[in-house]
């Protein structure tokens, strides 16, 4: 039942093999916006699903200086990975969460080097929570408009205005079904992260 993988024997109590350094990107956006499609387009494994704990801040709390009421729910989280080399692996975590405006994704996002917010221009408001979250957490991110059937309902300038993101946040159109397109979108996020690290 268990795979018999070749092992590098190490001294007792030690890891038999050395794991890669995991670098994490988060892909966020509303339900059905293409997160899992994007992960699946570029991941070397079929996207896996697990249950993540989401802490939701109860609606109606507008004073962030006070501790809001929280409830914890679990949501399905899809993810995949790309082996860069034996010592380095990129993980892509697709995070759900669109309908509430105050949830926290800390369980998933902690340590992420950047985020990609996927937007469907027909349902722009679905991504506000993700944009707010990355801004609040000061995580480098880009906004990617998923061009369903090659169609984008609004111009990028309209989208930028509607989302009220700063000029420093890259905004692009991509196709979640196209591997090269997803790769390029992730590269934009990583360049943002790199620029942040060099600042």
């Amino acid at each position: 039942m268990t795979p018999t993988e070749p092992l590098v024997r190490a001294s007792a109590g030690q890891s038999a093999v050395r794991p890669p350094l995991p670098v994490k990107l988060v892909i966020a956006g509303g339900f059905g916006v293409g997160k899992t499609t994007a992960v699946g387009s570029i991941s070397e494994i079929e996207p896996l699903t697990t249950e993540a704990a989401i802490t939701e801040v109860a609606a109606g709390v507008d004073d962030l200086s006070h501790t809001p009421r929280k409830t914890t729910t679990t949501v399905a989280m899809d993810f995949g990975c790309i082996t860069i080399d034996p010592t380095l692996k990129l993980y892509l975590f697709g995070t759900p969460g669109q309908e509430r405006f105050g949830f926290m994704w800390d369980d998933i996002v902690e340590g992420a080097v950047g985020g990609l917010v996927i937007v469907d221009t027909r349902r722009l408001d679905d991504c506000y929570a993700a944009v707010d979250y990355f801004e609040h957490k000061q995580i480098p991110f880009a906004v990617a408009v998923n061009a369903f059937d090659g169609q984008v309902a609004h111009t990028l300038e309209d989208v930028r205005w509607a989302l009220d993101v700063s000029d420093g946040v890259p905004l692009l159109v991509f196709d979640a079904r196209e591997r090269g397109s997803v790769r390029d979108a992730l590269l934009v996020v990583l360049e943002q992260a790199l620029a942040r690290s060099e600042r």
Partner: protein
Amino acid sequence: MADGRTPRGAGEDGVAPVGPAPAVRPFLVTAGRVAGGSGEASSGRSMPVETQLVATTDGIDALDRLSFEQHDIVAACRVPQSIAEIAARLRLHLNVVRVLAEDLRTAGQLSVHVPDSGVTHDASVLRRVIDGLRAIPDSRGVLRDTD
């Protein structure tokens, strides 16, 4: 949001669900212990979902004596796996994996590699990821009709 407008080719609906986690005893296997929402294990360290788990030689030697989830985790971690992968593949709650991983680490049967945020955010690491990603071709073994 009106439902029924979920576009095709889209996110959650596009993937075959692994199936629900067993309804019984998600935390029975941890004797009721839970890890914090952000992965605060009993050691006080947090364990992000990408934390790498690797079986130790002691763990592999002890496989016959381990039972159920502990056995499955150590067996699966002959190849390094993230906490998220173990949770998905063994259909365990993330926080159950965190608790059990901490137990197994304490017992010397699993090594837990929490990524150093300073290292993963380092420019040299990010450049390597960028270079590696750039090398990925447009399609996975599928010839494009142009070019």
